[in-house]
């Protein structure tokens, strides 16, 4: 097994302090870039590293950077630190454990793309992360890594730490930009206007995930060949019914079986029934897929996706109807209400699933669910609504007998948790 890269210093005390970070080689990549590399050469290194976005969409980072017009008078970097995909906690781990890596990666990104102003959109629930980043940014300014004429060059760069206020939808990149502009976090239409061309304040904007940016200092310091030889390193958030849940760093393409082993195995020596490979927006897979490499293409072939690489493990005792109902309920509550398929579809689906769970389901309900899933596919304004059909399809195709058992009265009806009784929910969260 290769040595840890992204998690190498995570967990060490005082890694969030700039003195320790410097002693452990911190800001060396920035020094090297400013001294030896042109911005184009930095972009080229990232391009050759084959780095793909770690937020969920998996878009090649170098290509994304190249979309940004070179001569634009104003352009921005926005780091998406609105980690909210259920089961995902690797960005929080990086922010709390190695905050300067993110800052160094951001400065390198700004240098590469020619950006002066950068923002971190940090979800409000990361109170500890906020305190750590606030301090780390202040330290970076005090050491001359941020601000005017960094390290005596012509390059200047500023970072603003921006808190969110509770809305899963703000993790969608265009909704995030709306939120950062001080509006409701509702997604923008794309195509034709992608953020790289028309983003924050209508200007070209690079939007990258926290983990993606944390990869940059390593790639710049040691080169793309080294990076690829390390796996390339990928963070998997492993949770659910495992003995030691946590962030596992493993080469991209590691199987769920290996990840579960590294997380101490399934709790109580039970067997795996199902697992989400990439957060609840991905299609959950079954035990027969435990040896599939968790990488972009192999998962896409199964109608699933790597997404945020959040592996949620469910053992043989898990009630899959309840799991899918809970997941659909989440999307219902977090729907921003902008488009009809998502706003209405998520409500219909959860009503039907609740009915089935309460023992009042009908066999026709299964066809109805299938038809709603079909009508939500490719019709929603943004990926939020599109996240519902994969779970529904897996339920109807791979765990149909569990639905039928509820409908036929072979399973004791259950009441779902009290979410609905909470009363009026904010539209975004």
């Amino acid at each position, binding site marked *: 097994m290769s040595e840890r890269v992204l998690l190498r210093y995570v967990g060490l005390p005082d890694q969030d302090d700039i003195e320790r970070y410097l002693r452990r080689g911190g800001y060396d990549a920035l020094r090297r870039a400013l001294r030896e590399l042109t911005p184009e050469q930095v972009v080229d290194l990232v391009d050759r590293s084959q780095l793909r976005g770690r937020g969920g969409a998996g878009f090649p980072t170098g290509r994304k950077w190249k979309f940004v017009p070179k001569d634009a008078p104003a352009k921005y970097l926005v780091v998406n630190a609105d980690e909210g995909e259920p089961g995902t906690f690797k960005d929080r781990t990086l922010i709390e454990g190695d905050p300067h890596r993110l800052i160094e990666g951001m400065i390198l990104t700004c240098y590469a793309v020619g950006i002066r102003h950068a923002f971190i959109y940090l979800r409000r*629930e990361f109170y500890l992360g906020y305190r750590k980043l606030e301090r780390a940014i202040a330290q970076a300014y005090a050491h001359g890594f941020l601000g005017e004429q960094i390290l005596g060059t012509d390059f200047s760069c500023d970072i603003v730490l921006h808190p969110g206020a509770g809305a899963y939808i703000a993790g969608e990149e265009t909704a995030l930009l709306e939120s950062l502009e001080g509006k409701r976090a509702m997604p923008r239409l794309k195509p034709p206007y992608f953020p790289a061309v028309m983003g924050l304040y209508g200007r070209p904007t690079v939007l990258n995930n926290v983990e993606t940016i944390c990869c940059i200092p390593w790639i710049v310091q040691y080169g793309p060949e080294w990076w690829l030889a390390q796996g390339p390193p990928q963070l998997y958030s492993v949770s659910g019914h495992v003995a030691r849940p946590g962030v596992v760093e493993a080469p991209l393409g590691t199987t769920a079986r290996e990840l579960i082993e590294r997380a101490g195995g399934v709790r109580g020596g039970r067997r795996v029934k199902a697992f989400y490979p990439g957060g609840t927006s991905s299609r959950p897979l079954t035990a027969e897929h435990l040896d599939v490499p968790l990488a972009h293409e192999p998962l896409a072939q199964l109608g699933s996706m790597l997404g945020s690489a959040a592996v949620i493990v469910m053992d043989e005792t898990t009630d899959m109807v309840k799991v899918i109902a809970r997941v659909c309920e989440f999307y219902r509550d977090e729907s921003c209400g902008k488009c009809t398929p998502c706003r209405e579809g998520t409500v219909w689906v959860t009503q039907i699933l609740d009915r089935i769970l309460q023992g009042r389901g009908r066999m026709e309900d299964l066809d109805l669910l299938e038809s709603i899933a079909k009508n939500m596919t490719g019709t929603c304004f943004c990926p939020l609504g599109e996240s519902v059909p994969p779970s529904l399809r897996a339920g109807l195709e791979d765990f149909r007998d569990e639905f039928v058992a509820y409908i036929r009265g072979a399973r004791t009806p259950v009441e779902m948790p009290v979410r609905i009784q909470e009363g009026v929910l904010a539209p975004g969260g």
Partner: protein
Amino acid sequence: MLSEAARQDILRIRSRYPVAQSALIPALLRAQEELGWVPPEAMAEVASLLGVPVETVAEVASFYSLIFTEPVGERVIQFCTNLSCMLNGAEEVLRHVEARLGIRPGQTTPDGRYTLKLAECLAACEEAPCMIVGTERYGNLTPQKVDRILLDTNGGV
């Protein structure tokens, strides 16, 4: 209604952004830090400090679950019921929290100490089930641990 310090902070926050409206969410959070929630008068004040229409402020404030447009207790509990927490016994722990505080999600204890809210994934699934009380996160919750936490954050009472 806002203190001079809060007003100055909001103006300082405004100066960080090329467009004043970008400061809206951080400004509302700053107001909330002082008042516990964001009453209409505070929205009006934020609107005038940022030069943004008050309707816009209200529209934005009502969208986000962590901007409180109604009074809340001294500490807001954000209790996660999402999948990883659900798989790890969140429901049982939630029932215990409800019984201990004598309130349901969305309610505030009669003494005004706690408001219980259900949260979606808090991105701390390695310690599921988990919750945030005020600004502190607590994980690996059990009914016993909840008793200790609620006692502690009560200031030992």
